[in-house]
Every structure is written in C-alpha cells, then in structure tokens.
C-alpha cells in the first residue's frame, strides 16, 4: 500500500487540498515578457478530481508547476498539499525496467532498489503489468508506458496528483481505454487530482468538476459541476450535453 501523508500542510483549511487565488505569472523571454497566467483562481477539495481545460498555450503547464512548487507566482497565493507530477510525455528512464521506473520516486527518497521493487510489485500486478516487470520502456506499448508513469506518480505517496495531459500522446482507442482505467483506479485509490487536458470529453468523463480557462494570459472563465455516477459513457446524453456546455464556455462552435 502507498500511504498518502496526512493532508494538512501549508496553511490549508480542511476543505481544500489545493487553493490558488488570483495568481499571475509572467516569463521573460528574448522576445519580451509572456504573461502565462493573470488572475487565475482554482481550488480542489480533498479527493476531488478537477479537470482544467483550455486552449493551447493558456498556461496550463505553468499552473501545474505552481501547484507542485516548481515555480512561485509573481502575485496571488498558491497553497497546496504536497503534489506529485505526471508529465505530459511519459519520461520513463530508458535504462530502467518497468518496475524500477515505477519505484523511482521511492529511490529518490533513498529507498534501496529492493525496497522500491517490493513496494511497486503488487501495483504492477494490479495494473496488469506483472509480466512486464523487467521490460524496458522501449518495448512497452504507449498505454503501458502511461500506466507505469502514472504508477510512478502514485508511488510518490503525495495527496495531490498533478496530471499534465496524461493521454494526449496516445491513439484514440488506447486513450479511451486509459480513461476508463484511470476512472477505475481513482475509484479504489481516491486522490486529489488536477487533470490538465485539452480533451473536453476526457474532462467530462473523468472529473467531478471542470474548470475552463481563457486563452493566454490564462484565468478561469467557467466552471461546470458534474454530478454523475461513474463509470460514465461518452454517448450518455447527459455527458454529451455537459461536453457541449464546456465547449461553449471555451468559445468553440459546436
């Protein structure tokens, strides 16, 4: 079992796992400053799955890095329980087997190879990867790599999971499989999840709440609560309707 540490740190009250208030962030580049976020607010309750959708380049990745403590805001406040990142590309280490990749976060904190493997092995079995324990990433399929990558983030043992477009690089069929898979995993292993995606359908199928962001400089322009039992079918009229609402909030023609 992965023990999530108690969800209390960094001046958060009991209802919040993540709370960003009026956060702004500007990057200096050679072609002048680029404002990624302007007045962005976001919150997530413990064990809530919040999807953030927005057009390309609206500062979604910056948002996750703020939550993970990899950056600091120029103004506004960021408070979050400890968060582990699942990057957009799987970024598995090519020289490590699946099991050693999955246990990387444990080794990062000083566990021995054996300890990390013992912790990871039951999870690989749960994720249907037990036959691939000793397989290197190059020989795994895209879906398997994302599962190993997700497991690596999960085994970091943080209460908040920051998922950056986790399935964007997969083909359509594998992506649907993986979305169903993630929904089942979160059912049995609930965490606070901030899910960045550009796929509105993915957001509606997986999340408790969808936050819609504006083009750069990004800020929240809409929020859709999704009170629907899981698993959700993407053909369900209610899902279709919510998807249309989210697309309308994004300003897309439906």
């Amino acid at each position, binding site marked *: 079992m992965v023990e999530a540490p108690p969800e209390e740190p960094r001046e958060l009250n009991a209802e919040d796992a993540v709370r960003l208030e009026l956060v702004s962030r500007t990057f200096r580049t050679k072609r002048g400053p680029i404002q990624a976020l302007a007045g962005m607010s976001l919150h997530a309750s413990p064990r809530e799955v919040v999807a953030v959708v927005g057009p390309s380049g609206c500062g979604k990745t910056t948002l996750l*890095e703020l939550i*993970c*403590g*990899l950056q600091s805001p120029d103004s506004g406040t960021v408070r979050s329980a400890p*968060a*582990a*990142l699942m*990057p957009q*590309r799987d*970024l598995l*280490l*090519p*020289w490590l087997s699946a099991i050693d990749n999955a246990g*990387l*976060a444990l*080794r*990062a*904190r*000083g566990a021995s190879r054996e300890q990390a493997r013992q912790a990871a092995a039951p999870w690989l079995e749960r994720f249907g990867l037990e036959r691939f324990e000793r397989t*290197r990433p*190059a020989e795994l399929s895209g879906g398997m790599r994302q599962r190993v990558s997700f497991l690596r983030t999960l085994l*970091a043992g*943080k209460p908040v999971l*920051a998922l950056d477009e986790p399935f964007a690089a997969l083909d359509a069929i594998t992506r649907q499989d993986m979305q169903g898979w993630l929904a089942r995993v979160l059912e049995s292993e609930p965490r606070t999840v901030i899910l960045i995606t550009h796929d509105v359908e993915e957001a509606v199928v997986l999340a408790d709440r969808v936050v819609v962001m504006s083009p750069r400089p990004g800020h929240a322009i809409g929020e859709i609560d999704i009170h629907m039992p899981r698993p959700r079918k993407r053909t369900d009229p209610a899902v279709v309707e919510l998807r249309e609402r989210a697309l309308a909030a994004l300003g897309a023609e439906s």
Partner: protein
Amino acid sequence: MRRVWRGIPAAILLLALIGAWELYVDLKGSTFSLILPPPHQVAKALYTDRSLLWSSFLVTAQEVLLGILVATALGAVLSVAIHFSPTLRRATYPLMVASQAVPVAVFAPALAFWLGFGILPKLVVVAVVSFFSIVVATTAGLAAVDPDLIKLMRTFDASRMRTFWHVELPSALPSVFTGAKIAVAVSVIGAVFAEYTGSNSGLGYVILVSQPQLLAARGVAATVILCVFAIALFGLLGLGERLALPWAYRPRGEIAT
C-alpha cells in the same frame, strides 16, 4: 548477408582509389616510388616485414588503449566536477581548448626528460590529446538531460545528488562512449608523434626511420596498420557500447555508430 552487401560500395571505392594510386605511381616512374611507394610494394612490405610490424603494432596499440582509458577515467571525473561547478568550467575550458592547439612535438621532449623513454610519456600524450573530446562530449551529455526529468525528480523530493545518480549520470553514459570514439583518431596520431620524439619501438618509430632508410613502403605499411587499428578500435567501442548500454543503442548505419 545484408551486412555484406552494405559493405560493397566502400570496397569498390577503396579498390578504385588503390588502382588510381598504383597507376599514378607507375606513370611517375621508379624514382617517385621512393617517395610514394605503389600499393603492390606496400602489400609486399606488409608481408615481408610482418614480424617487425606486428611487434611494433603491439607497442602502439598498448599506448593508445591505455591512453584512452586514462583519458576516459579522468575526463569523466572532470566532466562531473564541471557539471556541478560552472566556475570550474569557465576555468578549465580555455586551457583544454589550448591544449588541443599545442603541437605534440613541443612538449614531447620535455615529457621524455621527465618520464624517460618508456610507455609513460606516450600515455600522457595520448591522454592529453583525447581528453578534450571526452570531456566536451560528457559535459554536453550531462547538460542535455531533459529539464522536465529534473522537475519530475524535484516533485519526488529528490536531493541534487540522487537526481544526479539516478537520472543525470546514466543519461550521460552514451556521451562518454561518443567522446571516446571521437578520441580514437587523434589518439592514434598522438601515439605516433609521441614515438617520433624519444622511442625505439612502435609503429610511429617504424614510420620515422623507414624514410631515411629508403624503405618508404614499410612506412606506408605501418600507416595502413594504424588506419585499420583506428577502424577496429572505433568498431570495438561501438560494440562495447551496445553491450554495456543496450537501451541507448539505435541502429544508425555501419561504422557511423
């Protein structure tokens, strides 16, 4: 079978060049062949002088192999130190670049004075000339680690040392091989020049003394062996890389590994 077919263009080109060389020397006449011996004389020298060439080859090969080994070990250590200290990089890079421009002949006599006429001064020369490419390739490899991986390790609360140990060092290992492969050619030249100044054995010594003895074909034969040795060493390093780091190997044509 396919590998054999892929070698055919190189073989045809080589044969054409050798043929042109033979023809050119024949047209120039027999005096010229004392300066540039035709291929058939070189082939003859390879055969008749085989025991001298073989024992000389063993001397030079030892110098080159040990020299590259020393340079790789020291180069890897310095690269890691440079990776952690930009100040050290700024301090050492100009000197390393300068060391590449210094002709071996300038400091070889001093080396012979300090270290004698044995293998030691040759090792130093080979190590100095190959050091640079190994350090440049390795530091580049260490610096080229995906910044997103470093960020990922930070969200896993990894210390600087653990990030280095688990992520940066393994990703840079293929670059060490790349540096050693680039070093092969210069290290062979380095060994030859080191033998020019202060030795009585090795292929460089054979080349040096064959000219005044009017045995030009023997000198060229020694050169041919050096060339084949460089190719073999390059291929050997490629093979070693494939065995040691199978995850990093992507087929990329034959010799251009």
